[in-house]
């Protein structure tokens, strides 16, 4: 249960919203759950729905809308490549395709060692830096702009090493 482990975090998130607008806390609470479990589990959704007095469907429906959130387990690090129109014009789709080929996975898939997932996502507001992606992992979110397949692979190597040493 999130409420036991993170009671003070939850309290401070809820304190940001008026009592009759509690439901606005749904995104930060889901992010908290995702950091804890690696994805927003059904149990976590039910707990959040109870906390905010909304239906679990209203929690679950947000996950598909925001690429920040997911409801099933994936790699420890998620490489999220923006494939919206301006990035696509700069070759983001081709970049994503080649990167996946090198890693031997489909777009949306996870490497066999469970370390890396690669996903195509909606606008990350960095069109000028395309091709670009963000990495979501245990240590938060980092942007990587003006990427090539080689630079991305180098980063992935580094992520794997970081994990070995950590």
């Amino acid at each position, binding site marked *: 249960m999130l409420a036991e482990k993170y009671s003070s975090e939850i309290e401070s998130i809820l304190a940001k919203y008026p009592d009759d607008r509690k439901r606005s806390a749904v995104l930060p609470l889901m992010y908290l759950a995702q950091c804890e479990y690696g994805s927003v589990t059904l149990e976590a959704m039910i707990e959040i729905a109870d906390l905010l007095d909304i*239906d679990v469907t209203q929690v679950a429906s947000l996950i598909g809308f925001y690429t920040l959130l997911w409801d099933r387990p994936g790699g420890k690090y998620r490489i999220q490549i923006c494939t919206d129109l301006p990035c696509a014009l700069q070759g983001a789709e081709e970049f994503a395709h080649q990167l996946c080929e090198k890693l031997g996975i489909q777009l949306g898939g996870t490497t066999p060692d469970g370390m890396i997932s690669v996903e195509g996502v909606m606008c990350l507001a960095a069109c000028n830096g395309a091709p670009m992606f963000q990495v979501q992992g245990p240590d938060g979110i980092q942007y990587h702009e003006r990427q090539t397949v080689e630079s991305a692979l180098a980063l992935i190597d580094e992520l794997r090493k970081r994990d070995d040493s950590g």
Partner: protein
Amino acid sequence: MTKSLVTLTIDGIEVSVPEGTLIVDAAKKVGIDIPVFCYHPKLHPVGMCRMCLVEIGRPARDRSTGEPIFDEDGQQVIHFGPNLETSCTTPVGEGWVIRVNSEKAREGRKQIVEYLLTSHPLDCPICDKGGECPLQNLTMEHGPGTSRFLFDEKIDLDKHVPLGELIFLDRERCIQCARCVRFQEEVVDDPVLGFTNRGRRLEIITSSDPGFDSYFSGNTTDICPVGALTTADFRFGARPWELNRAASICPHCPVGCNLTLNTRREARAEGRDVIKRVMPRQNEHVNEIWICDKGRFAHHFASSIERLTKPMVRVNGDLVQVGWDEALVRATEGLKDALGRSKGGLVGIAGGRASNEDLYVFRRFIEGLDGHTVLDDNLAGGDLTREMGVGRGTDLGQIGPGDVILVIASDLHEEAPIWWLRLKQAVERGAELIVANARATRLDRYAAHIIRYPYRRAVQTALGLLHAVTKRADLSPFVGDKSLQKVAKLFMKAENAIIFYGREGLDYKASEALAQACASLLTSTDHVGRANNGLIAVWPRVNTQGAWDMGLQPIPSGLGEILEQASAVYVMASDPVADDASLETLLREDTFLVVQELFMTPTAELADVVFPARSFIEREGTYTSGEHRVQRFYPAVLPLGGTKSDWRIVTSLANAMGIELNFPSAAAVMLAIAESVPNYSDLTYQALTIAESQWPHVGGESLYFGGNAFKNSQGLGVQVGPAAEPGEPSEVALTMPVEESEEDGLLLVPITRLYDRGTTVLPSKVLHPRLERLHIELNPKDASHLGVIDGAQVEFRMNGKRFQLPARLVATVPEGIALMPRSLGVSVVNPIPVQISSVE
């Protein structure tokens, strides 16, 4: 407060509508159909689908003076903007000019249809909606006929997704209008549907457990403008154009929702007509365009193969099938013989499932033989609702600011879902709702005041409220706390007030005392005898009010005593033995028993003669709703086997017994009712068929606008007024409650759940996964004293019998109480103390 009128021109037609009216509605009022998908007159507009695009011209004004500009001919100059606008989100403006069918507007809508069809599967030939599909119709009207989009780029999505056991989703057909999502959120407050993902991959999801957990889910299939949502009951069942229709009234609860029964002749049914689906029929005074899922899906009992089709008589201890003549002779002889004996007379027991016509001739027949009629029911007060029921012209849809509604001892969401919905909406319009019950119910969420009393203290609570209003000295023992004073003040200053009372936690006598206290509260605050004021009972059956009006009423002490005296018993549409097994021995002895029924019930099994009755789908008649609206239902299918309408069975037997009861038709019975029942004096079958036009327009040509509900052309029914005139000083006699001594153990209280396992629900297999299971509900504290965990088996003894069943721990159950839903296998009529123990 009336809104000022705004005048505008739509395609050359001048129209004046109240300020705030949306352009799409204003156009509809003058017969101009602006096509819509996401817009629905019962939902808030969102402008999602863009189908309703029109050109809007606004009067030009001088920027410096703000004065209107006129051209050389003295005509006001109208400015049209560069873009098309959504007529479903734009309220009308004075002097506006709307172009609906201009070339520009038509081209805009054509492009929207083309876009909507880019990923639509176009599987109309196998789609349930095909033939009554707004997308199909509007594509024919506005669509391009061809597509410029690549077939290979079509998005394929899942086609047979069960959202629960009752509703299926076809994701490809969905055009993302959110009518279903918004209906669930805005109208019925079960937000169990949502959108996930984005763009063309947008999908409807439900995460509730069970899936799509709502008593109103079927309505989403009516307002879905495509075949994305279909019911498990009708899915792939028939094409809409093959269906015949008959107007009907839902037989499941006292709301009296108007229905249309869609039927089709089927080879599978040996060429008989069968019910293919039950649809809402518009009656804005009763159910608007909605029905609950019980009304929609629990119709299969009427065509069940378990139905009785031939008369039966007892031969050497066994019931054997015979012809009508023989059965009538046996019944006549048996009754004469039994009544000729010295022992007591005839007792006629009838239930609130029967129609007014049945009940009227039943009473005439039984009284003609000097017998006693008894209504088999355990809620009192039908005499009071007849005198002080809601006035003529009452419409829950008009209750709003300044009005007060009290609901006491009832769980409307389970007992009468559409009343629950109507009260929720009244609160949204500004009415104040007071909910009084011993436990929390779904209605609490909308209550301005919640009164919580211990079970067995409902009457005292109502009397406390009455004391706060009247300050009567004899009521001083019931003085309540400040919250009662507050509620009393609300009642006194209310413009209109209605009280709904039920039977939760009450025995018959207590319900009588409660009805009296509520009636007295209404009379002493001058809330009787006029529209939107009065007393409503939450009856257990569809026509219990009609039964009281026809002159039947229950016996306060129960059936036991009178049956002991009886030498002959006649039962119609009632199953007293199922409720009270102890009656079995009384009926088994040397009592001559005649039963007319749909099924071989425990009571029918004891009978000497059994007559097979017709169900509501095979005959005509009228029911009187809890709001005192008398409504007609019509035959939808040919009668099953040798069945007859209840009133006809009674008149045949009456005539054989030498009692003159000759009626050529149900309509003729109604004429006799009108002559003898005061409030019914101006009723005729013709009057009941009058149907004024209603807003919004639904069904038929307007199905894209208001969805698939059926327009009401067969009658809105007639509300019969209460006997009491306004201002008439009416003193209600009060019964003071008897303080009951606290007994050891828990008080077992029967409650109502919508999906029970009664004979009118169980034959509908489609509902089986949702039916309540036999269990008992305990407060977790009581359970821990008893050493019972959630789901564990418990046992108790009642009336000398031992029962074992699983327990559920529910925090809202008051301490010291065990709740048991009715009609699940163990019959509990009245609250009764029991010793519950854990089963090792």
